[in-house]
C-alpha cells in the first residue's frame, strides 16, 4: 500500500487485521479522529456506545470471557481513561485479555497539565500487562500488533495503548500490518521440563488420595479436553475455583464442586486430607486457601501453571510443572497409569450429603417463607437446560450463583473473581452476549451492584441486547450485611438501601420487567423472561436477611466451615 493514510485509519485497519468485530467505547475530544474514522468503517466494526467508560471495560471483559478473543475498549483522554482503571484492574487480576485504547492530548502538550491530560500510562502500569504511549502515527501498527500478542498470549491480561491526538491525525506513508509473535524480553510460555512431568506422574501414580484443583488457566489455555482425559485416566476427584467453573461439566462424576470461602464442604475439607494436591492453572488465592499456615500441609503439591511467578507464591510446590496446561496435562496423562479412587471419591460424596442436609436443601427447595436466592438460581438454570452463560455481579447473589447454577460447557461463568468489582455484572453481561450471540445470557445481580452501572440499561435499549437480568433484590448490601451479622454483632452500619422501583426504571429503558414476590409466580415469571425475544428484567424480592453458607471465615483454616443452623 503506497497511499498515505492517517494514524486513525492505521489503528482501525490494525484492529481489523486482528479480527476485531466489536468495540465498546465512548468518544471525547482526544479520541475524535479515531471515532471519525470509525464512521467510515461502521459496516466492518460494530461499535457499542456504552454509558460510562467503566462499562466499556467490563463489557470488553465479558466479551473476552465468553468468546476467548481479546476484548477492546476505546475511550478518550483524562476522565475517559481514568474511568477505565477499575475494569483494567479487574482484567489484570482475572487474567482477561483486553485492550484499552485511550486518546491522549497532542504530544506537544504532554506534561503541561493540558485540558483532559492524565498520565494514564503511569496510572495504569501497576494494573496492566503492558501500557504504552504512541506518539507517532507510524508506530500504531507495530504497537497494536504487540498489544494483541501480549494481551492474548501466555497468561492473558489487559494492555493499555495511549495514542496522542497528533498520532491519530498524522499520516502514515507505508502502512503495513504484521502480527507479532515474538518479543525478546517476553517469553509467554515457559519451556516444558520433562523431569517435572515425570515426577508429577510418579507422584500421581503413587497417590492414594489425589485431588485436583481446577483454575481458570484450564479455560484460558483451552485445555478442557486434556483435563478431562487426565482426570478420567487418573481417576482423580476435581474441584474448581470460582473462575475455573465450567471447565469440567457440573455433572461429571469426578467433579466434586467448588473451592473457597463459600465453596462446597467436601472440596474445602478434603484439601487437608489428600496426599497429593494437583493444582492446575489456579493461583491459591486467599479466598481459596484461608490460612496458609494450616493449608494442605500433609500433601505433596504439584502445581501446573504458565506463570512462573505463581509457583511457590502462596503455596510451596514440590513439583513445579511450568508450561501451557494443554501441553503439560497431555504429557502427564501419557505417563500415568489408569487408576480409580472410588473410596476416596465417596468421602467427598459423604460431605455432599451433609452439606445438602444442612444448607442446600433449605436453599434450593424451600416451601415456606420468602423466596430464597438459591431457589431462583436453580430454577433459572433448569429452565435454560443448564446451557446458559451465568454472569454475576458481586455479593451474596454471586456466591449463590456460582454455587447453584449448573454448567454443561466451558466458558459459562462470567464473574469478577479476583477484584470483586461491584458494577461488573450488567456491562459484562452485555459484552458476554456479543461474545457468544447464540447462547442465553443470565445475569444475576444485587440491588446494590446494579445501581453502580445501571446506566448501561441504555446500551441494552439502544442495541436490543438480549440479556436476561435477574435482580435478586434483598434491599440490603447483602454480603456486607452477612458479615455484620456474623462478625460485627448485627450492627447494620450503612447496608440498608432504599431502592427505586426497578420495574419502572427498566420500563423507562424500554425493557420489559416484572416484579416477583411469591414462590407461586416464580416459574411463570422465569418462563415469561426466557420466552421473551429480547432483554427482560425480573425484580425478584428475596429474603432480606439470607445467608450464604457454607462459609469459611476469612483467614481461617479450610476445615473451619460454618454451615449455619445445622
Amino acid at each position, binding site marked *: 500500500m503506497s497511499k498515505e493514510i492517517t494514524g486513525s485509519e492505521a489503528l482501525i485497519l490494525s484492529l481489523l487485521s486482528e479480527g476485531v468485530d466489536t468495540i465498546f467505547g465512548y468518544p471525547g475530544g482526544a479520541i475524535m479522529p479515531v471515532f471519525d474514522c470509525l464512521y467510515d468503517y461502521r459496516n466492518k466494526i460494530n461499535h457499542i456506545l456504552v454509558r460510562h467508560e467503566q462499562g466499556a471495560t467490563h463489557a470488553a471483559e465479558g466479551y473476552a470471557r465468553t468468546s476467548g478473543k481479546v476484548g477492546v475498549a476505546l475511550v478518550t483522554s483524562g476522565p475517559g481513561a481514568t474511568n477505565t482503571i477499575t475494569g483494567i484492574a479487574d482484567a489484570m487480576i482475572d487474567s482477561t485479555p483486553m485492550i484499552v485504547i485511550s486518546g491522549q492530548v497532542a504530544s506537544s502538550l504532554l506534561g503541561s497539565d493540558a485540558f483532559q491530560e492524565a498520565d494514564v*500510562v*503511569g496510572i495504569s*502500569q*501497576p494494573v496492566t*500487562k*503492558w*501500557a504504552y*504511549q504512541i506518539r507517532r502515527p507510524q508506530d500504531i501498527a507495530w504497537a497494536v500488533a504487540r498489544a494483541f500478542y*501480549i494481551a492474548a498470549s501466555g497468561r492473558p491480561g489487559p494492555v493499555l495503548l495511549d495514542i496522542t491526538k497528533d498520532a491519530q491525525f498524522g499520516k502514515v506513508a507505508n502502512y503495513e500490518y504484521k502480527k507479532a509473535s*515474538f*518479543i*525478546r*524480553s*517476553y*517469553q509467554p510460555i515457559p519451556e516444558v521440563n520433562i523431569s517435572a512431568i515425570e515426577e508429577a506422574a510418579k507422584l500421581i501414580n503413587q497417590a492414594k488420595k489425589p485431588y485436583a484443583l481446577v483454575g481458570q488457566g484450564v479455560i484460558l489455555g483451552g485445555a478442557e479436553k486434556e483435563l478431562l482425559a487426565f482426570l478420567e485416566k487418573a481417576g482423580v476427584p476435581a474441584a474448581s475455583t470460582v473462575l475455573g467453573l465450567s471447565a469440567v461439566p457440573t455433572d461429571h462424576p469426578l467433579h466434586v464442586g467448588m473451592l473457597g470461602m463459600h465453596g462446597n464442604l467436601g472440596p474445602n475439607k478434603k484439601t487437608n486430607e489428600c496426599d497429593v494436591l494437583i493444582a492446575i492453572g489456579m493461583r491459591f488465592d486467599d479466598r481459596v486457601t484461608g490460612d496458609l499456615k494450616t493449608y494442605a500441609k500433609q500433601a505433596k503439591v504439584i502445581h501446573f501453571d504458565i*506463570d*512462573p*511467578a505463581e*509457583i*511457590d*507464591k502462596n503455596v510451596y510446590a514440590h513439583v513445579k510443572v511450568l508450561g501451557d496446561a494443554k501441553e503439560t496435562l497431555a504429557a502427564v496423562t501419557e505417563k500415568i497409569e489408569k487408576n480409580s479412587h472410588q473410596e476416596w471419591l465417596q468421602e467427598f460424596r459423604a460431605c455432599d450429603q451433609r452439606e445438602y442436609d444442612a444448607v442446600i436443601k433449605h436453599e434450593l427447595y424451600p416451601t415456606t417463607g420468602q423466596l430464597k436466592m438459591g431457589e431462583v438460581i436453580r430454577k433459572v438454570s433448569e429452565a435454560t437446560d443448564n446451557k446458559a452463560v451465568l454472569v454475576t455481579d458481586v455479593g451474596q447473589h454471586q456466591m449463590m450463583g456460582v454455587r447453584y447454577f449448573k454448567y454443561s460447557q466451558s466458558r459459562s461463568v462470567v464473574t469478577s473473581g479476583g477484584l470483586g468489582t461491584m458494577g461488573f455484572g450488567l456491562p459484562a453481561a452485555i459484552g458476554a452476549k456479543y461474545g457468544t450471540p447464540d447462547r442465553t445470557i443470565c445475569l444475576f445481580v444485587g440491588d446494590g451492584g446494579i445501581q453502580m452501572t445501571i446506566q448501561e440499561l441504555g446500551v441494552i435499549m439502544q442495541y436490543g441486547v438480549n440479556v436476561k437480568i435477574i435482580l435478586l433484590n434483598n434491599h440490603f448490601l447483602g454480603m456486607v450485611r452477612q458479615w455484620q451479622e456474623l462478625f460485627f454483632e448485627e450492627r447494620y452500619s450503612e447496608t440498608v438501601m432504599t431502592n427505586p422501583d426497578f420495574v419502572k426504571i427498566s420500563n423507562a429503558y424500554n425493557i420489559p420487567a416484572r416484579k416477583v414476590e411469591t414462590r407461586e409466580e416464580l416459574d411463570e415469571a422465569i418462563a415469561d423472561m426466557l420466552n421473551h425475544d429480547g432483554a427482560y428484567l425480573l425484580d425478584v424480592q428475596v429474603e432480606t436477611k439470607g445467608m450464604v453458607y457454607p462459609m469459611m471465615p476469612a483467614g481461617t483454616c479450610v476445615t473451619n466451615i460454618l454451615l449455619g443452623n445445622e
Partner: protein
Amino acid sequence: MENKTLFTVTIFSENTAGLLSQVTSVFTRRQLNIETLSVSPSALEGIHKFTVTTFSTEEEIEKVVKQIDKKVDILKAYFNTDDELVHQEIALYKLATSEFLRIPSVEELIRKYNAQILDITETYVVIQKTGHYAETQSLFKELSGLIGVLQFIRSGRVAITKSKTERLSDMLQKLDKKQK
C-alpha cells in the same frame, strides 16, 4: 521478619520509558525498602541494567524477582547475596580547605582509607572513596569527627557476580535463534 539479609537484585531491561517505576513498585507492594539503586546502560547496546539492594528474606526476594522478571520489557532478573558478588560503591566528601590545611592528620586518614583527592580550590576539597558501604561510612564518621564534612554523597551499589551465571549476550543469542 527478623532474619533479613541484604540482597542485590540485578535486572536487565529494554530501554523503554517508565520501567524504573514498574520495577520499584514491585518492591513497594511487598513493603521492601530499597537501600540503593543504580541504573545505567549495560555493555550491550540498547539494554539497561538496574542494580537494587534491599533487606529481605530469600523466600520474599525470590517472589519479587519473579514478579519483576515477568514484566514484558524486562529481559532478565536475578538476585545474589554479598558473598556471591564483587561489589562497590563510591562516595564523595567535601571539606573546607582551611580546615584541611589546618589539621595535618587529615592526610593520614586519607592514606589509611586509600581515598583520593579529586579537586582542591581555595574554599573546598573534594575527596573520593570507593569501597563497601561500611568503609565509606567509616571514613565519613572519622572525617566528621576530625574536621567536619560540608557535603557527602554516596552512589548506589554496582556489582558483578563471582559465579559463572549465564551471560546476557548468550541468552540473547538463544532468543534470536528461537525467533528464527
